[in-house]
């Protein structure tokens, strides 16, 4: 029953998309400036239908309707309700539904929120957005249909991967998709702007909040994914330079470059074509990421069961997007000579964009290179953290310094009248840095430079804050975001330099000592839960110097459906450090492998990213108020 209903709603959505395209073209032929009310109505109905369709699928997961292959493969009646619901988008087919919902809702909201912009621009945006929607609806209907039924109906489902049964993972995909898929709307808007020659600052106004919305959610999505990796994968790190993580970073850099450039387009009417390139690039990179993940070309924790048909479809769609947009871009592109002063805000925004492009290209090459060598020479290589750390981090130093200086420059022509101020800030930053390294004893030139430059950014942003409070002209959004980014790099630097890690083989009852620490393996407990059994270790970590004792309980979990072992890290967080402990059994022995880590300032890394997005949110609200 639900299968028929779901399919019907999907077909209906496709039909509504087609009619939106048809009526938009009809409306374009008319000379009046108003958009027909029926276009608004159809768009609203389309949003309702697609939401209904998604709720149908959620309902199927909640009532465990195993007559749908998708529910059968990804759910189980014994699963907690929250994970039944999140199971809806925890698989390939269901997540595509989430894609389409965001495409449709953004399409509707863009249409009703941009009433002050020309009719032609809005209608073309609607047309392009619906072409993308149709592309994905066809993909769902004919290749990855979540409503495909199965007969005879199985009695029980195959369950969901236990490492995916996690609150962070329940919200990770929706957040990330809001970023990824949200970028579709300014892709469509950029195409529409090219066709209708809408090339002034009002174009910047029409898309700037959309860029920020997608950026904020992309950032949050990446953050939640990292937090999940930190406590679930049991490795103690939060960023692995895994190709799929990289795929989420690529559009993030493009977005970051984009909303900085948009400021220049808005204030100075410059960089129009560059802004268009970034708009097109962001969504193309998002779809490329989707292709790499869904086609099974890359192996990682994110890989869904691969199916070449899927890959071919997304690749064809991607090619269409790329060549369609390039064709239009080259047709409309005319070279403009911008003469901007090398010491002006415009230049500094441009410098930001160069850095973003540098990071983007480095990561793009690192991600694609193994695919290229494998396809061309059959040799398997892997590009990992050593490459990225070596190429990216030294450049971050220069980036942070420009980031500190840039916001204080003036449009058109700037004069550095605050040079002494900057020197004082640099001296303070260097002094704090050496104090840190003096007390904690660890030394590499690069980590010193990173700490100094991040402190330089933090202090000069704080200085800006104080100055702007005096002038009562506060750009709080920018200051918060820049300070948080400084803190983010600062805490990552500290965390990287002052982490302690120890691998131990221990029996129950044993005590081991190292540095200032003593670990006591007190006992083991066995516990039965609804959908898994757990072996829970009871370990006491003591800082001998401070006499501070903490009990940690790492777990080994045995899930039944499907039968899987997972290792749950025990983490004790406080404001200064995290204790991180994992335990795994060693076959046919009474020993357990205990991995202990002390990770300083962990929680501040997460908080910095939260504040980074807070800056984004503030800017969105301020823009909305001004409009």
């Amino acid at each position, binding site marked *: 029953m639900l299968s028929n209903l779901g399919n019907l709603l999907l077909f209906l959505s496709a039909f509504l998309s087609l009619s939106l395209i048809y009526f938009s073209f009809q409306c374009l032929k008319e000379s009046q400036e108003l958009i027909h009310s029926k276009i608004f109505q159809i768009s609203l109905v389309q949003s309702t239908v697609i939401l209904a369709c998604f709720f149908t699928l959620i309902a199927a997961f909640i009532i465990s309707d195993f007559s749908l292959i998708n529910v059968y493969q990804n759910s189980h009646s014994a699963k907690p309700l929250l994970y039944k619901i999140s199971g809806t988008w925890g698989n390939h087919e269901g997540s595509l539904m989430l894609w389409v919902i965001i495409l449709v809702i953004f399409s509707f909201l863009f249409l009703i929120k941009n009433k002050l912009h020309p009719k032609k621009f809005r209608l073309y945006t609607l047309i392009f957005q619906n072409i993308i929607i149709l592309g994905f609806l066809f993909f769902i209907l004919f290749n990855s249909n979540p409503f495909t039924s199965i007969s005879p109906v199985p009695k029980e489902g195959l369950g969901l991967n236990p490492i995916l049964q996690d609150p962070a993972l329940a919200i990770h995909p929706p957040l990330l998709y809001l970023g990824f898929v949200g970028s579709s709307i300014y892709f469509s808007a950029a195409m529409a702007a090219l066709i209708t020659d809408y090339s002034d600052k009002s174009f910047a106004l029409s898309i700037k909040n959309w860029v920020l919305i997608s950026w904020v959610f992309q950032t949050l999505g990446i953050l939640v994914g990292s937090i999940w990796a930190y406590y679930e994968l049991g490795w103690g790190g939060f960023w692995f330079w895994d190709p799929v993580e990289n795929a989420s970073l690529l559009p993030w850099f493009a977005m970051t470059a984009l909303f900085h450039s948009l400021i220049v387009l808005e204030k100075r009417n410059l960089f129009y074509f560059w802004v268009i390139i970034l708009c097109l690039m962001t969504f193309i990179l998002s779809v490329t990421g989707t*292709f790499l993940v869904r*086609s*099974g*070309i890359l*192996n990682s924790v994110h890989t869904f069961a691969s199916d*070449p048909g899927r*890959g*071919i479809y997304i*690749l064809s769609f*991607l*090619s269409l997007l*790329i*060549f369609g947009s*390039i064709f239009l871009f*080259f047709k409309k592109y005319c*070279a403009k000579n911008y003469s901007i002063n090398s010491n002006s805000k415009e230049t500094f925004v441009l410098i930001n964009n160069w850095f973003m492009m540098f990071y983007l290209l480095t990561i793009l090459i690192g991600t*694609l290179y193994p*695919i*290229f060598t*494998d*396809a*061309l020479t059959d040799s*398997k290589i892997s590009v990992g953290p050593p490459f990225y750390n070596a190429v990216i981090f030294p450049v971050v130093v220069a980036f942070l310094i420009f980031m500190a200086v840039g916001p204080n420059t003036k449009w058109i022509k700037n004069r550095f009248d605050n040079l002494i101020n900057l020197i004082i800030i640099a001296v303070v930053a260097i002094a704090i840095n050496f104090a840190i390294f003096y007390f904690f004893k660890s030394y590499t030139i690069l980590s010193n430079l990173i700490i100094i430059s991040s402190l330089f950014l933090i202090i000069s942003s704080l200085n800006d804050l104080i100055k702007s409070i005096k002038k009562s002209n506060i750009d709080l959004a920018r200051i918060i975001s820049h300070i948080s980014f400084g803190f983010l790099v600062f805490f990552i630097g500290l965390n990287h330099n002052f982490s302690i890690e120890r691998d131990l083989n221990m029996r129950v009852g044993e005590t081991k000592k190292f540095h200032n620490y003593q670990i006591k393996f007190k006992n083991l407990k066995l516990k039965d839960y609804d959908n898994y059994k757990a072996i829970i270790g009871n370990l006491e970590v003591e800082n001998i110097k401070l006499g501070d004792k903490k009990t940690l309980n790492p777990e080994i979990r045995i899930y039944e459906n499907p039968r899987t072992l997972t290792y749950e890290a025990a983490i004790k967080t406080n404001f200064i450090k995290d204790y991180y402990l994992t335990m795994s059994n060693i*076959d*046919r022995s009474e020993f357990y492998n205990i991995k202990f880590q002390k990770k300083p300032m962990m929680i501040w890394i997460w908080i910095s990213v939260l504040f980074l997005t807070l800056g984004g949110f503030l800017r969105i609200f301020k823009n909305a108020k001004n409009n």
Partner: protein
Amino acid sequence: MQRIIKFTFILILIFTIGIFYLSLKKDNNYSTVNLVGKKIHNVKLESFEEDKLFTLEDLKKNNFTLINFWASWCAPCRAEHPILMNLNKTQKLKMVGVNFKDKKKNAESFLNDLGNPYDFIARDELGKQSINFGIYGIPETILINKELLIIKKYVGPLNKQDYYKILEIVSNL
């Protein structure tokens, strides 16, 4: 100039999409099945007992050599051990055991407990030599002939059927 840039840019994109297309058709699970029929090369195995090297020349002396990769810590190796012991009775087959990432003491007590089916035992403490044979987990077993061609390759423990198959191949010549 602008034309050249446009042209190069489009070419790069077509190339990238082409590569993506090629990669789709590839099986990206690492598999060594296609090694069957290929020649082994670059083999230098260190003997278990004394400072002696075992090379390709030694392998060429035998009509058939069965190279088995094992370790004392590997449970499936224990399971396949009786089959190796039986294979040892075949005169036409020389057997080489490569002790993979293991401690010498443990390996010795393993063989003392279960018997030694090998004519030659080599050690590969770091697991690097085994990679040259296309091994990515143990137990694995390869059967090679005089020309050093890999005739058969078994990933995982040998079973009864494999045993009869090996006997069949060896006795046909």
